[in-house]
């Protein structure tokens, strides 16, 4: 947890923005483009005056030059309620000696919260561990990031609580980032995320993978699942090739299914700098929809 408490991460993500992928409908002033067209000083377009428009919005200078009565339009900007959901199941406490998966997940969650908070978005965090869901409601006030940090520091990954029900409880947030290894209820979670995307929410999936999971050749002859003791498999040379193939296929299918659901999917590997992961997540991706 050195990188969480040192402040280096927050320094590294300072100045990074996390723009909304769509026009937002927030009621409060923020950094994201709002659906509403209102009184923002940023000019957008003219529209002929119609009965019922506020006469105060008539651009009299334009009327003087062109004798056309038009009103001046401008887009509003609003904030985006953001919640970062962190998977704190037993599988995240890996490797047992360093807990590198959990440290990376916590760092990425903190970085995302810090970036969103810097954009004046209400930001909160939801931690799902063996005890269930523990959430910090989205706030914009100062000290929110510190509260998030405190909550993450107080968390010890354990248990195997499913994430999907907890995700369903976060419907009030318009932007949800899920930081997990997706080894639990991945299908139910994807289904829940698909519904949220269909409901106009932005969903980000940050897949945390340990380097040892990518290459377990140095582990031992028999491996066991920390969340399910009944899963005990041999992992010697003969089984390694099958493991690589099977795990690789699963990762590809997972990424494809989340992207197909309209979510942003990013893979993060332990050993990678968390600020780089944060930048990759918040950087707008040109999808077919967006480019259109």
């Amino acid at each position, binding site marked *: 947890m050195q990188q969480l408490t040192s402040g280096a991460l927050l320094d590294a993500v300072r100045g990074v923005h996390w723009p909304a992928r769509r026009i937002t409908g927030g009621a409060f002033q923020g950094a994201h483009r709002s659906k509403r067209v209102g009184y923002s000083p940023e000019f957008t377009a003219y529209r002929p005056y119609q009965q019922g428009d506020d006469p105060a919005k008539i651009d009299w200078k334009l009327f003087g030059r062109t004798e056309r009565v038009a009103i001046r339009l401008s887009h509003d900007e609003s904030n985006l309620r953001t919640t970062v959901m962190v998977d704190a199941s*037993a*599988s*995240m406490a*890996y490797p*047992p000696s360093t807990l590198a*998966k959990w440290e990376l997940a916590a760092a990425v969650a903190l970085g995302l919260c810090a970036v969103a908070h810097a954009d004046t978005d209400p930001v909160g965090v939801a931690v799902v561990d063996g005890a269930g869901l523990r959430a910090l409601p989205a706030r914009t006030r100062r000290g929110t990031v510190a509260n998030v940090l405190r909550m993450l520091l107080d968390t010890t990954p354990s248990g195997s609580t499913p994430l999907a029900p907890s995700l369903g409880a976060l419907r009030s947030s318009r932007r949800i980032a899920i930081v997990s*290894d997706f*080894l639990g209820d991945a299908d139910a979670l994807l289904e829940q995320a698909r519904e949220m995307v269909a409901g106009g929410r932005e969903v980000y999936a940050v897949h945390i993978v*340990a380097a*040892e*999971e990518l290459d*377990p050749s140095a*582990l*031992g*002859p*028999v*491996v*066991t*699942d*920390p*969340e*399910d003791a009944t*899963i*005990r*498999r*041999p*992992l010697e040379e003969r*089984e390694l090739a*099958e*493991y690589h193939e*099977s*795990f690789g296929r*699963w990762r590809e299918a997972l990424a494809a299914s989340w992207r197909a659901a309209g979510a942003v999917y990013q893979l993060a590997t332990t050993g990678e700098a968390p600020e780089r992961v944060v930048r990759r997540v918040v950087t707008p991706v040109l999808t077919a929809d967006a480019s259109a």
Partner: protein
Amino acid sequence: MSFLAPGFLIAAGAIAAAVVALHFIVTREPKMVPLPTARFAPDRPARGHARAIQPRDLLLMLLRVALILAVGAALARPVLRPPRRALARILLVDRSRAVAREAEAVDSARALLSPGDAVVVFDRTATVVRDDAGDTLAVLARSPYRGRLSAALIAGLRTASAMREAADSFELAIISPLAEEELDQAADSVRALWPGAVRLVRVAAATDTAAAPVVVVEGADDDPLRFALPSHPARARDAAPPTVRIIRGATSGADSAWVREPGRVLVLWPAGAFAPRDTGAHAGPALPPSWSVRAAPDTVGAVSANGTVVVAPFVRYAAYGGKTGDDADAGARVAARWVDGEPAAAEARHGAGCIRTVTIPVPSRGDLVLQPRFARLVAAMTAPCGGAASLAPIAEARAAALAGPASRGPAARASIVVPDVTPAPLVPWLLAAALAFAAGELLLRRRARGTSRVTAREEA
């Protein structure tokens, strides 16, 4: 050392070898390493083989092997065999009343005795002495009882069987005057069981110094029993004081006092039947304590005493309930038996003399009492206490038959009967060692388990 059941030792060796093999080829579940993505590994049985060789385990293995071998050796019944000698002797030393001087028998025995030989001292019973036989011979005393060579021969045969592994051949020596009375009817049959020759060392026989008994019959003058006596009673009474009194009626305290003197015999031989002890004196003389009146008197065909058999339809009205033989009080003896084996007459010591109770009816009709066989029966009933001694040596021909042909020599070991039970003194020690090994194994295993728990706790 040899084993009576070596199969158990072989089986124990095989089991111990299997234990050693299993100890070095241990199938253990390999150490589990957590991996959250373990589910992507192919689903195959996660077992492996690991060799475990640790000093502590080696000690455990040694204890287990020792335990198995100790139990196997105990079941195999090891026997320690001393070095086998060329010849071992079994000396049958006579100490019965037929021996004139016991010192002569002892000297003869010592002349033959070697370390490791066995001595059987006998009179009416036989006692085997295998260790420190010289000490036993030093205190050997002459016995007042009749010797029984058959009992000594049986003891000698058993001793030879027990000593079977101690020598290559065995010599049986009888140191005895070989009086007639010592050889009963079983002696020849028992002698035939000895496969070799028998060395006979004859010592001087005691002489029968007792004078012929002076018998008086205290009864009616026409008592038929008087005519069965060898001499006329009237003359015997006049010649010398009686040594044997036949009471044909009730006894008195004076009779009991009389018989306490040495060499006196009081024969209770009522003319009629004995009366039960709880009836009045008028019903007849009372039965001695060892006897009881039969509820239903029967008729028995014959009676035997001292080799004489008298065949006649005797009425049997009393039954003997006392003990005879080794269990009896000193001096108790059956003097005559009915043809079915039940006692017909018995004697008991009384002071220095004895009281002999005879329940054989004397017929007053017919000529039975005049026949020589009945006279011999009466002579047996009036014999001195302990029966008539026949201390005359046996004939040379019978002695030669007893010794057997000299060409047979000592009995070879192979011809001696194998004993039914061979003592194996090491068995209890081996079982105790097995128990000690088992306890040590248990303690070591518990200690190892405790150590592994502490290690696991420390690792946790």
